[in-house]
């Protein structure tokens, strides 16, 4: 192999390696497990000390606002979990009873999920389709 090729390969390798290194270090920082509420329950003790994103539906009438935090319950396939939201951002517009929500944070030993971030979307109405049976008159 001639010298120029070596130079190019070395240059390219350095670039690729440094980008890969950046990627890996950034990866750990933002890596999280994505679980639905029922899957989280199945994890049992494995669920502690991990960064988690938990998805489920907001249980009707479970949202309680207090100064500094918001408590609510998420439900999926019959399993329910209590969430304590302590993040500084206000809850999104789409967050309300029945909405599909995702809480990011960790599970405390008390069994309550401590969330620092909430995302929500109105699953029921966002892209609604008419169901033949529901329209029965």
């Amino acid at each position, binding site marked *: 192999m001639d010298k120029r090729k070596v130079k190019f390969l070395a*240059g390219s390798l350095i670039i690729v390696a440094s980008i890969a290194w*950046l*990627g890996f270090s950034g990866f750990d920082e933002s890596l999280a497990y994505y679980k639905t509420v029922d899957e989280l329950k199945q994890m049992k003790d494995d669920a502690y000390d991990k960064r988690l994103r938990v998805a489920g539906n907001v249980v009707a009438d479970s949202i309680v606002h207090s100064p500094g935090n918001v408590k609510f319950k998420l439900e999926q396939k019959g399993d329910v979990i209590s969430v304590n939201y302590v993040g500084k951002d206000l809850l999104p517009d789409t967050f309300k009873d029945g909405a599909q929500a995702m809480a990011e944070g960790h599970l405390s030993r008390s069994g309550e999920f401590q969330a620092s971030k909430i995302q929500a979307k109105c699953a029921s109405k966002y892209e609604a389709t008419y169901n033949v049976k529901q329209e029965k008159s």
Partner: protein
Amino acid sequence: MLALVSDFGQFCMLFAFCLSCYAIVASLVGGRLGNRRLVETAERSVMAVCGMVTLTVFSLWYQLLNDNFNLQYVAANSNRAMPWFYKFGALWGGQEGSLVFWCWILSLFSLTTVLMNLKKNRNLMPYVVGVISMVTTFFLLVNNFVANPFDMIGVIRPGSAVATPFTPMDGNGLSALLQYWAMVIHPPILYTGYVGFTIPFAFAIAALITRDLDEEWIRTTRRWMMVPWLFQGVGVLLGAKWAYVVLGWGGYWGWDPVENASLMPWLAATAFLHSVIMQERKGMMKVWNMVLILSTFLLCIFGTFLTRSGIVSSVHSFAQSPIGPYFSSFLFLMISLSAYLLLTRLDSLKSENRLDSVVSRESSFLFNNLILLASMFAILWGTIFPIITEYLQNEKRTVSAPFYNKVNIPIGLFLLFLTGVGPLLAWRKTSMQSLKRNFTMPTIAALMTGAVFFAFGMRHFYSMVCLILCVFVMATIVAEFHRGANARRRQGESYLQALWILTFRNTRRYGGYIVHVAMVFLFVGFAGAGFNRDVQKEMGPGESVEIGSYSLILEKVTNKDNPNYASAVAVMKVYQNGKLIDTLLPERRFYKAKEEPTTEVALRSSLKEDLYVVLSGFTPSTSRAVMHVFLNPLVAWIWIGGLVFMLGTVVCLTPDRHEKAMQKVAAPVEAEELAKA
């Protein structure tokens, strides 16, 4: 009448599908047998498909504008109270309609391609038409048999086994987040980008099949690549603007899967537009260019699959839908076809030159491509990571913004650096003397900027590096224009005249510089993010909140009501240095049809900074307004960059004197050398 038009639309869509199937067979068989007339029938079918899909789209528009809620699509995406332009835009507001729309743009592109190549590229055209028709057929297949926008709502009444048509009183309405002016233009522009990449793909496949891999096809392809590239770029920026103004979280880019999906093909196309110069001038990187064209298109299809199959979650949530398997099958088919053709044609794609020096134009293109692709792969990896882990470990794991930022900020800065350096390096090898001549002044300017920033107490590392590089790149570009104009001025032209003539004598080169200026503006805007500030405060009337040099006083909260939505408006008086400078009206709306609240951001934008005010809500106990105020420096430069980007690309696309000459002269390299001298 409504039902009649709906049936007519349905019929046209089906007929278009049949015609398109015919076009595939006729063009491929015609090409194979060398039967010119058969190929011509295929081309006419492509024109007819365009007519049929146009009629389909108009029928659907007719349904939307006339509130035919008997159609599932209309009922789900429109309602009576919506203004007409949103009803119009509802065509691309949901899954089925947007696929029809997609198909329509594709058919318009196909028509243009056929019309422009009636006399040119005749050897390639049979296969170009064949590939385009394959893609069209696929979309029409999905539209006719899986996601049909003309499906009606039926009801099974007691005592009857069959469903009878049912028309609800009103529709669900367009999602409130979509009711924003950009809705009317952002999706069409972005789709034009996505869809347009089909044409270079078709040319690439045709060139591979025929082994006609000379300069002619790559020249045609470069132009066809640049048009969708322009639209895609503008579409992505419009999306960012939309997110910034509508979502109310103070940012414009969140590395959402759908955003990523739209950025990836653009990055691949950007890489191609650079490395294609290597092929035209030096006959190098032929395989690489081929890979870039093919993957740009494949990324478009992949992105569509990703965002519409419901396989990843995103703010753009198209619902879980049955179209996923169709898209993955189609994608698989296209990947196999591309890979097979590429691997069997490697011998025709040999490089005619080799790299000479690390400090040369060639190597700057090489590094430019390397890191553009690295960025693309990082984004791709992050986006599909949840799918991979779910498949491999049966456990979904996700990455978020910090990952993307960590990788892409350094990459972006390096790219910015190359933007300044690359165009001024000589081909083959750059002498020390020319390095000095070209870079002394920009380097001094950049270092001085850095010193000034540092003296003013600026400590954000990335933002500072970014702004220093911006000054550096800008200086190199200005110097280039200045040198060129000065040379012309000696011939008696005025300075401005010289600049003008200079640019339009060599549009590729100077248009390229203008696009680079746009990138500088974008990066100035990105750098601002390092200094974002925000405060959140619960406020009653008469209370104030401070941010930066601004002081905002909440005067009162008023309520409005109309059939589409009810809203609360906070009247905020903005003071700077004790002087009233503006009144901002952040708003919270409640859309009645969808029972959806939305945030209307109030924005006071200047070149220096954006004052961005959100009425986030009311505290449940005291009903006091919760205001979230952001101070985002330099954001306006991003939108200015977008405008300059459009301008530069249009200049690039304008044929110049030597490009016209190139079409006549056999050896393009010499012609370009001639024009430069």
